[in-house]
């Protein structure tokens, strides 16, 4: 296979999956020999490029920015991977769904006003802070997803196994490698 173009994105999640990705340590160097990272929170590219081969998506779809970006990603990427529990199950980010469909105000109030130590104010500047969706959705609920890489976060060896398998076009993960949590 030619050098393939990889992207990683960070939607509604804690960045833990990306941290775990960085825990790949020296494998990152192997990886760098085989792939180009064309878009990621860890490199400085503003616009999601066309013709991406593989995209690891961390986090759930929580706000309008996430939604827009995800549609763009799907249109410009061959293979999507739901990367970590938040992308697959919504995980902790979805706990606000328990409050029902009209939870956005309530949740912002709690987070930015009630829990604030200083300067309690609700972020509401239209066009600057993306609006929350009424319900947090897993990635595959919005666009079709080819592969799932669970874990909270997925441990580095699991990420390595997954990427190696994928690059070598061998079967996907099985058994305990699919463990949530």
């Amino acid at each position, binding site marked *: 296979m030619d050098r393939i173009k990889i992207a990683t994105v960070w939607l509604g999640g804690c960045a833990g999956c990306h941290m775990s990705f960085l825990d790949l340590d020296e494998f990152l160097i192997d990886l760098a020999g085989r792939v180009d990272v064309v878009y990621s929170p860890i490199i400085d590219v503003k616009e999601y490029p066309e013709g991406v081969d593989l995209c690891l998506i961390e986090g759930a779809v929580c706000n309008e920015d996430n939604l827009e970006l995800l*549609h763009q990603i799907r249109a410009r990427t061959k293979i999507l991977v739901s990367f970590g529990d938040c992308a697959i199950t919504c995980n902790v980010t979805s706990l606000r769904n328990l409050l029902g469909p009209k939870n956005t105000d309530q949740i912002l109030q709690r987070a930015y006003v009630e829990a604030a130590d200083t300067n309690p104010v609700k972020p509401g500047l239209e066009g600057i802070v993306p609006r929350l969706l009424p319900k947090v959705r897993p990635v595959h609920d919005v*666009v*079709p997803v080819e592969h799932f890489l669970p874990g909270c976060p997925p441990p580095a060896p699991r990420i390595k196994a997954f990427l190696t398998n994928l690059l070598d076009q061998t079967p996907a993960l099985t058994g305990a490698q699919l463990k949530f949590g």
Partner: protein
Amino acid sequence: MTLNDLQETKAKELATRKKIVLRCCLAAGCISSDAKGVKEQLVKAVAEAGLQDEVEVRGVGCMKLCCEGPLVQADPSNALYIKVTPDNAPAIIAALKGGKVALQQADPNSPFFTKQEPIVLANCGLIDPERIESYIAADGYLALHDAIVEMEPKDVLDAMVKSGLRGRGGAGFPTGLKWGTVAKSPGARKYVICNADEGDPGAFMDRSVLESDPHAILEGMVIAGYAVGADQGYIYCRAEYPLAITRLQKAIHQAKRLGLLGAGIFESPINFNIDIRIGAGAFVCGEETALMASVEGKRGTPRPRPPFPAERGLFDCPTLINNVETFANVAPILRRGVEWFAGIGTEKSKGTKVFALAGKIQNTGLIEVPMGTPLRTIVEEMGGGAPDGGKIKAVQTGGPSGGCIPAQHLDTPVDYESLTQLGSIMGSGGMIVMDETTRMVDVARFFMEFCMDESCGKCIPCRAGTVQMHHLLVKLLAREANARDLAQLEELCDMVKNTSLCGLGQTSPNPVLSTLRFFREEYEELLQPDPHAVPQLAAKP
């Protein structure tokens, strides 16, 4: 009670009969339109006209044409008055004397009546359900006498097998075979249960039979008890049918008084008691094992079969469960002979079937037709087609477990196999007619909501699967679903059907499957395009 006593009772009842009988429907439907008031006024009007010696005003059970109630029919003139109000009473009496009066009448010679072949409903609308003498005068309890005094249990079992009677509760299991299994099962104690938990929405056949001819059920049950060797029976009746319960209680009391129930029936050593158990609003209790749990005073959750109730049922004893209509067929079969019964209907479905005709149809009410009668005869000739010049679109049979049969299949004969082939079932006999204004996806959603609410919650596919199927149908109707959702719905139907514990879960996808089969375009019209449809995804599990 002996045969002589029985015949004397009959003779006495017939001898005291008056020249003219005004039969006044006192089944639940007509009572809701003040039929009791009609009867009171009729009695009063008879007295005022000084006709007490000539005219009897008799409260009877269902007279079948429920949509036109309250109904009053005069014998022997056969005039059938409809939508009678208490104020009409004097006019009806005047009509008896040949006076011309403007009263609404139905034609007793219309196909609705003439195409019927009453076996189960033979006494409905004729006898007074609250008087055992009235039943005896119609040859009631004669079959019980013959069975107990002149036949061995195995002769009764033979007769049931030869008659070809199949269970009228839905699945159509051969009744004789079921009875034989219970009879053969070892056990000192056995039970007979009558399933009167008619839960299918849109079905009221059993209600009508219970309200109109309760003794027929008792007689059938005692005969069954004798044949299988049981001495205790239960009637599990839904609480929604208070009138049926009252009349059953009365009937049990009367039968006991005459020695036709209880200890030493017909002065033989045979004992049989019947108790009523009242349901409390759970559709799943129509399922045999759930029903038994409910009779035992427990949550009505089904358990896996085997063991079948015939081997281990109520209180872990061999138990025979049949529904109301099945028991109602028993006495007529013994009285009139198995050959007679086997001569009615089709090769595999013998006898008649009672249907409750309702929905978008001219004549709603109760009909009994030979098995194999084409659906078209039922809905178009007897039912009079859709009201207000509408067009019939489909007929729903079998309740939440059944399916919708589209108009193009109206020539299908109604028997167990033909309906199953069309993806529906005979069910207990509810028949809801739908016209062109009915949206089939909404009908599927309606039944799915029903199954979701009525799921007992024990097994996962039914408890959680119906929730997801309902969710997908709601999504479809809100025009928020795409082809992937529809595929998911179909996959869930298959899974819930094949993995649920009991009949309720296994058949809950039927309304979706049958509407998908015949009205797929109505689903597809609702679909939204999927902007990211990726063809290769279809192969993924």
